[in-house]
C-alpha cells in the first residue's frame, strides 16, 4: 500500500513524523529528539518520508511547533491524539496523553471527536520532562522503573507537586534512607493523582487509554491505573499517536 498523507508532531522533547496509507496504517515513521531548529529538522524528516513515498502528499502538523511546519495544516495535539487513539482502538472514552511538557485528559466521543479536555497547569510536575529529570537524578532507567516500583513494599508518600519542591523532597527522602523503590513508587503515585484530578467528571469503570511518551513508563501506567481505579491501556506506539491523528486529518476521505 502506498502512503496518502503525512503527519508531523513537533513536541517539546521529540519530533515525530509518520506517513499513513489509505487504510490509516502507519507505513513510515521517524522519531528523533527535538532539535532547537525545528524547521530544519522537520524539513529533513518530512523529506525522508516523502521521498520514500515517491510523491507529494498532504501534510498536517501538531504539537507545540505545529505552526512552524510550512505548508502543513495545523491542528492541536488534543484533536490529533483523540483521532489517532480512536483510529487505533475504535472506541470512545477517556484518553490520557502525557508528553514532555503537558499532560492532557481528553474525552473522546462516539465519532472520535473531542467532547472535553483538561490540561495540567503551568507547573511542570507530572510531565514527562520532570519525570526524566528526577529519575535521572535517582539513576533509575526508563526500562527498569516499572519493575522497581512494582517490587516496592510500600509507596513512600511524596506530597509536593511543585517541581522544585518535589525534587528537593525526593532528594531528602533518599538522604533520609527511605528505600529507593518506595520513593519511586510514591513519586509516580503523587503524579498520577495529579493526572487523575485532570480526568475529573470522567466517571465510569471503562478502560482508560494512554498515549504520549510517558506511556512507555510502566510505573506511570500502573500508578495511573491505581489512581483512576480503572484499567489503563497503552495505545500502540504511544509516541506516534499525535502524528497519526494529524495524518488522518488530511488523508483523502475513504
Amino acid at each position, binding site marked *: 500500500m502506498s502512503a496518502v498523507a503525512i503527519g508531523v508532531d513537533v513536541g517539546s522533547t521529540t519530533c515525530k513524523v509518520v506517513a499513513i496509507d489509505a487504510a490509516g496504517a502507519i507505513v513510515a515513521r521517524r522519531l528523533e529528539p527535538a532539535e532547537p531548529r525545528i524547521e530544519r529538522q522537520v524539513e529533513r524528516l518530512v523529506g525522508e518520508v516523502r521521498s520514500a513515498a515517491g510523491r507529494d502528499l498532504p501534510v498536517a502538523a501538531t504539537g507545540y511547533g505545529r505552526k512552524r511546519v510550512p505548508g502543513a495544516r495545523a491542528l492541536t495535539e488534543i484533536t490529533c491524539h483523540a483521532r489517532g487513539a480512536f483510529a487505533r482502538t475504535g472506541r470512545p472514552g477517556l484518553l490520557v496523553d502525557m508528553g514532555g511538557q503537558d499532560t492532557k485528559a481528553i474525552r473522546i466521543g462516539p465519532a472520535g471527536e473531542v467532547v472535553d479536555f483538561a490540561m495540567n497547569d503551568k507547573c511542570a510536575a507530572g510531565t514527562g520532562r520532570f519525570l526524566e529529570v528526577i529519575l535521572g537524578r535517582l539513576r533509575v532507567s526508563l526500562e527498569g522503573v516499572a519493575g522497581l516500583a512494582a517490587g516496592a513494599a510500600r509507596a513512600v508518600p511524596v506530597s509536593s507537586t511543585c517541581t522544585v519542591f518535589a525534587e528537593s523532597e525526593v532528594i531528602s527522602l533518599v538522604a533520609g534512607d527511605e528505600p529507593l523503590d518506595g520513593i519511586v513508587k510514591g513519586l509516580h503515585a503523587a503524579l498520577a493523582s495529579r493526572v487523575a484530578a485532570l480526568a*475529573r467528571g470522567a466517571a465510569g469503570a471503562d478502560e482508560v487509554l494512554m498515549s504520549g511518551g510517558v506511556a512507555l513508563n510502566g510505573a506511570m501506567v500502573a500508578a495511573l491505573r491505581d489512581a483512576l481505579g480503572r484499567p489503563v491501556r497503552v495505545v500502540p506506539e504511544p509516541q506516534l499517536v499525535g502524528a497519526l491523528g494529524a495524518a488522518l486529518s488530511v488523508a483523502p476521505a475513504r
Partner: protein
Amino acid sequence: MILRRARYELAARAGGPFLAALDDWRRRHRRRSARESPFAPPLESLRALKALMTTHYLSGRYADGAVPVAWVTSGFPVEPLRTLGFHTVYPENHGAMCGVQRIVPALSDAIEAEGYSRDLCSYVRADLGSLVTGRSPAGRLPRPDLLACCTNICQTVLYWYRDLARRFGVPLVLVDTPFVYGEATPHQLRYVEDQLEEAIAVAERVARRRLDRAALRETARLARDGSRLWGECLATAKARPAPWTGVDGFFHLAPIVALRGTEACNAYYRLLLDELRDRVARGVGGLRGEERHRLVWDNLPIWYATREIATLLASRGFNFVCTTYTNAWAEAAARIDPDDPVRSSADCYTHVLLNRDLPSKLALVAGLAREYGADGAVLHSDRSCKPYSIGQVDLKARLAGDLGIRTLLLEADHGDPRAWASELAANRLGAFMESFG
C-alpha cells in the same frame, strides 16, 4: 426527639475518644523521650482541655435533631446563637484538625475534581472535601440547620458559606462587616447591628424560640469574661521565662473559638490560668532549656508543621511567646458590653484584627513585641489567607528597620502541606536563628 436530646446531653457529659488533633499532638510530643524534647513537660490542664473538646465534638455527633445546629465562622458574633441553644460547629476548627492530620491533599483532590481551584483557601477545600468524601478527623459533624457567616475575617467565608447553604439547603445569615480604615463610622456600625438583628430573627425562626434578651446579656458577659481570661493566660508569657510556648496557645485556643460564651469555657481558662501562674511563680518555662530568644508569630499556624517548627526553634533556645492569631480572641474583652450586647458586639466584631488597616496591625505586632519582650518575629506568609498576609513584606521591613526586631517571612499554607518543603523551611529558620549570633 426526647430520646435524641437525651443522647446529646449524655454525650455532652460523658467523655469519649480523644480529640483527634490533640491526640496527634500528644503522639508527636511523646515520640521523643522526655530527655530529648526541648519542651517542658506538658501542662496538666491539657487533660481538662481534651475532655472539654472531646465532649464538645462527641456531643456534636448526636446533635442532629436534638438541638438546632449552626455552622459558624470563627469571627461570627456567636452569643445570640449560644443563647438560643444552638450547638455550634466551627468548620475552620475542623479544617485545622484536617491540617494537623495532613489529610488536606486527599480532601482537596476530591473537591478539585468538581472544579474548585487549588488556589482557594485550604480550610474551604478541606471542609468541602470532607463533605464530599465523608472523611473527617472528628468522626462526623452534625448537619447544620443554620449557617452563620461574618466577613470580618475575610470575604472567602462569604463564598464558602454560600456553597454550604446550597449543599445543605438551609438558611444562611450573613454579617457583612465593612473593612475599617482608621475607625468605623457610626453608619457602618449601624449596618452591622442591623444585620445582627436580622440574623437573630432568622436564628429564632430556625430554633423555634424567642431570644431571651436577659439571657443574651448573660452570654455576652460570659463571652467577655472568657476573652478576658484567655487574654490573662496569654499575658503570663510576658514573664521570663514564658511558662508555655505560643504553639501551646494554638491548641489551648480551641475553647474560646468553639465554646465562647459558656461557663465551661471560662472554667477551663481559670484552671489553665492557675497552672500558668503557678509555673511563673516557680520559674518554670515552656522550654526545657534556657530561653535565649523570644519571638512573635504572625498569621495562622502552619497546622501540619507547627510542632516541627517550634521544636526546631526550641532546640536552639527560641520560644514563641506570643502570636497575633491567639491574641485576636483576647481583643474582644475590651469592646463587649454585656448591658448592650448587640450594639457592642457590632462594634467588637467589626474591629477585629483582620478587619482593620495595616497601621493597626503594625501597632499590634510592635506592641506585642514590646510587651512580651520579643527580639524576633516570624511572619507566616500564608497562601491560604490573603487578608492576613498582604502587607507582611512591609511589616517585616518596618519591624526590622524601625524597631530592630529580626523578622523572617516564611511562606507556607495553613492547611495544605503540598506548598511546604521541610528542608527548605529548616534552612531558612536555621539561617534566621544564626542571624541572632
